């Protein structure tokens, strides 16, 4: 046990003092193995340490371990729940987006249909109006043509009668009907009216 004494002396060397050296000569109580208390201390140490080990390993440490495991499982459960909630929220958002998109495209189709229908109706209306106007125009032209024809027919008779009257009044000669008619016809033909 000499090395231990030397070590202790080395430890204390920094503190100097002759008193310490004197103390050293008396020896350390720790190295007094003749003392019955030094040995009984070890026996009690063995007993206390062994009982402490048993109580800790069989009773106290498992208690703490259970608490830690419980916390770990609580946290894992909470994380799981959060994950599930997140998945549900994501699905709901996706559904919402899809529904919005569907509603948008439906509305657009409806608008397009309505515009198409309105256009078709406008076209149809325009077509009937055109047809009616065309018909009226055609009728009016016909009437004009008829009136013109009637007027042109009457023109020859009036011209003939008028020419006969004018010849009679001017010359006193009663012009024959056929010659007057021929002259009127030639005059009209010359004017492009016959």
């Amino acid at each position, binding site marked *: 046990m000499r090395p231990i004494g030397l070590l202790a002396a080395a*430890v204390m060397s920094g503190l100097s003092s002759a008193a310490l050296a004197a*103390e050293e000569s008396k020896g350390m109580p720790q190295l007094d193995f003749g003392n019955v208390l030094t040995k009984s201390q070890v026996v*009690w*140490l063995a007993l206390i340490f062994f009982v*402490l080990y048993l109580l800790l*390993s069989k009773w*106290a*440490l498992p208690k*703490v371990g259970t608490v830690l495991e419980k916390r770990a499982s*609580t946290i894992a459960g909470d994380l799981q729940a959060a994950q599930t909630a997140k998945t549900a929220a994501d699905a709901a958002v996706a559904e919402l987006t899809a529904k919005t998109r569907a509603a948008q495209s439906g509305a657009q189709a409806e608008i397009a249909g309505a515009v198409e229908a309105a256009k078709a109706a406008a076209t149809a209306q325009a077509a009937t109006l055109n047809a009616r106007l065309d018909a009226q125009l055609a009728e009016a032209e016909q009437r004009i043509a008829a009136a013109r024809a009637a007027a042109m027919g009457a023109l020859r008779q009036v011209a003939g009668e008028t020419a006969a009257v004018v010849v009679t009044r001017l010359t006193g000669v009663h012009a024959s009907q056929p010659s007057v008619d021929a002259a009127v016809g030639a005059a009209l033909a010359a004017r492009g009216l016959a």
Partner: protein
Amino acid sequence: MAAEEHAIDALGQFKLTTALGPLGASVNFTQSNLMMLISGLLILGLMYFGARPQAVVPGRLQALAEMAYEGIRKMCIDQIGDEGKAFFPFVFTLFMFVLIGNLLGLLPFSFTYTSHIAVTLSLAMTVIVLVTVVALRIHGLHFFSYFFPAGAPKLLAPIIIPVEIISYLSRPVSLSIRLFANMVAGHVMFEVFASFILMMAASHALGSFGVVGAVGPMVLNVLLMGFELLVAFLQAYVFAILTCIYLHDAVHLH
């Protein structure tokens, strides 16, 4: 100097006496053992009252108990591997027993059982016996290959084997003396500086200068207390981690 008249009794504090009155005296129950009992109860109390709230968000005491539990468990698994879980209760007991012993010893009028070589050597021997038994149980006679690392030149066997055996046998010695010497040194310094305070204050030669000068060793003692708190933790940690390293060697053989 005054030192001659009032010798500093730096080692008297380590003297064993019986505790718990006549009953303790009849079974040679020392004050050292009383401190062991108190620290054992403190450790059990910490774990019991720490685990009792079972709170998901721990309070202070529960956090302390869990920190001790998880810290030492992590150390066991990190150092030894998965087999370390089996040794966790032992390493935990050892660490807490040494740590609380070191810390309790810093209280005035208490006793530091880790300042007794008989105690530290007993703990170290327990570790070494455990390590050897574990190694023999896992590896059988193959354990002895530990003393001759694979791949070493056969020619060097006469040198390597004795060196390995000596280093193996010196483990309990270094393990126990490290803790013992640290605790003794700290407490001796406390005692010496405390004696200086009284000597200087009571010195006739120094007069009122002595009273002022006595502040010096007192400041030193205050600083030393902080340092010793660090040493108390450090030595308990070193004791536990070396135990883990030895157990790693026992389980894995190098």
